[in-house]
């Protein structure tokens, strides 16, 4: 019987092991950093205004409170019914989650508010610029009125700077909710904001009415706007 020769399993040399270990360590650091950066980005809310200037000169102007329906708005306040405003950038991918969450909230609310969706459209662009899948989605919401917000003027008047910003006005004209109802950029799911809005639409009180908004910026800088 001929004797069989055995092959020793190949292994990595120590030098290679060191190189691989170092490379993989760097790789791990990159992954952790990248994941952290991505999570941080997703969790970073958009800008919002608690008040707005009365004129273009932001720093020099008197600030106007946003707790009330702005009188300069072309959208008239109807006090017989509560109104839910949503400001959208028609091309914001993160706002799809906001619309899905809104549909969820509305389906679970006892109060049927008047829903108004304002779609940002840049100056010089036709209205069709705003007719995206978000527009189509909002058209399906019952008792919803859609507006093209030319150059975000209405958003500015209401102080909404980020797509997905919702505002709920009670019949007395006071704003009882302001903010986004997603917990991150494009993140669906339960969140305190969504819970708060649901409570409000069901006639319950909620301790917090202001929430961060996650989405694309409708207005980049409020100083470029002319206050009404």
């Amino acid at each position, binding site marked *: 019987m001929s004797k*069989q020769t055995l092959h020793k399993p190949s292994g990595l040399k120590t030098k290679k092991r060191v190189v691989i270990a170092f490379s993989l360590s760097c790789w791990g650091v990159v992954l952790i950093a990248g994941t952290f950066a991505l999570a941080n980005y997703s*969790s970073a809310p958009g800008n919002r205004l608690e008040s707005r200037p009365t004129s273009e000169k932001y720093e020099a102007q008197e600030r106007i409170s946003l707790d009330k329906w702005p009188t300069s708005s072309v959208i008239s306040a109807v006090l017989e019914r509560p109104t839910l405003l949503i400001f959208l950038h028609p091309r914001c991918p*993160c706002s799809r989650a906001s619309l899905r969450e809104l549909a969820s909230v509305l389906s679970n609310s006892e109060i049927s508010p008047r829903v108004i969706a304002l779609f940002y459209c840049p100056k010089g662009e036709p209205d069709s610029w705003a007719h995206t899948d978000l527009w189509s989605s909002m058209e399906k919401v019952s008792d919803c009125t859609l507006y093209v917000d030319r150059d975000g003027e209405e958003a500015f008047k209401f102080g909404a700077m980020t797509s997905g910003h919702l505002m709920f006005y009670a019949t007395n004209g006071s704003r009882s909710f302001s903010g986004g109802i997603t917990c991150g950029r494009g993140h669906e799911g339960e*969140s305190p904001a969504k819970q708060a809005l649901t409570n409000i639409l069901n006639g319950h009180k909620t301790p917090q009415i202001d929430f961060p908004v996650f989405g694309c910026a409708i207005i980049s800088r409020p100083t470029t706007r002319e206050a009404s």
Partner: protein
Amino acid sequence: MNCSHVSDEQDSTGHADTWAAELRKTRSIELWSEHRKEICRHSDYLFLVLMIVQWLGGILVALWVSPQTWIGATPHIHMHVWAAIFLGGAVSVAPIAMAVLYPGETITRHVIAIAQAVWSALLIHLSGGRIETHFHIFGSLAFLAFYRDWRVLMTASVVVAADHMVRGFWWPQSVYGIAIATPYRWIEHVWWIVFENVFLVISCLRGQREVKEICQRRADLEITNSEIEERILQRTQELDDSQKSLQKELVERQRTQKEREQLFTELAKFSRMAGMAEVSTGILHNVGNVLNSVNVSANIAIDRLRASRVPTLVKAADVISTQRNLPEFLSDDPRGKNFPRLLKELSANLSLERDSQLDELLSLVKNIDHITDIVCMQQSFSQIRGNMEQLDLLELVEDALKIDDAAFVRHNVSVTRNFDKLPLIQTERHSVMQILFNLIKNAKQSINDSQQVDKRLTLTVTCDEDAVSVQVRDNGKGIEPENLSKVFTHGFTTKQEGHGFGLHSCALAAQRLCGSLSVHSEGIGLGATFTLRLPLQTATLCKV
């Protein structure tokens, strides 16, 4: 074989068994290692492809779902696109590099497991923590089970657990899709991973065990095959040796056969010569007998001629020729007066003498003719053999009888012929003649040697569909039963002056004529019967 030898052999067998078992075990481990490495290498390539697909897929999905982010009217490339390109690339590049550079290595599959877990985390995050995306984890673990290495599952599970724990604490919406979540929710998720891992680990261990068993069997098979091959080689060598030996033996046998044939040819030649000598002896004997008769006849003729009355006649003629007066002499002379009576007596004597001489001369001529016949017959049978011809067997039998015809008469042997009508047969004349002559001669001798008063020789010739039989039966001294099987053996004889050639050469001649020669005897004093059987048609002589 003594006890120490037995012990040595047992020790040797024991060492061989131990060595074979060790070899099997080593080979089994080697096969297992090769198989495991092959599985891992194959799985590495599968994950290499998967990593590329996930990377490209992430980029495409990012470009499709969220290609841009907007600041008012100004579009920018969405963070997700950059994340898909760079972070996805970063996740995939390490396992791809490892799979290309170090396929099958342990570190490679663990890097792949980490990368796959990170891909799950990334997808879960990008999908907003959708619970459906969590199935990517379960799918990935099942895919990682291709390695059949439970440690790889542990690596991936640890990364997933850590990710859930950290992100669940800091960004719960990123991993669970909700902003409000207990910090310990990751434990529930990890539990389900453990749940799946239990089955996958069992599956891996079972798969490893099965593969080990297969490797064990394969090692056994290989070693058995090796042993068989070695045996086959050994047997083949032995067969080659045997074949060479057989070939050598065959050559030797051929040489022996050739020598034997040569000897047989010479023996046949000598037998033939001996047969011919016997025939010649018989013929010469008969010729001698006839010559005796010729000699007797000649002497009688000489004696009679010497005793002839011719001188008296001459004397009478002289007397007559000397007489001047013949009538006076015949009438007057007393001698003359006796002349008529004398001439009458003389003529009567001469007539008798002539008749007697004539008889003797006729007998002499007859004997001389007999000699001529015998000599002619001998001459006809002494020619070269081998010519097949159509001949009348009965005529041949008669010729054979004729050779000993005088002897039969001399010894008062009565010859009985029972001949069927025969067609002409095709055979070799001289061999048949030799056989018949020998059989008849032996029968005659057997009869003469016996004390039989009624000496009988019976020749029976019969014919069937394809052969003729000639039976030569005598009532001579017979053959002992134990000698029946030997009578045709070369050198066997019961005669004092015999050589044992005659019947042996007859049997060989009968076989050469594609016939047979057999003997039957009831025993001593009961005579014997020899039967020659010949085919009706013999095209060529048969080999003996």
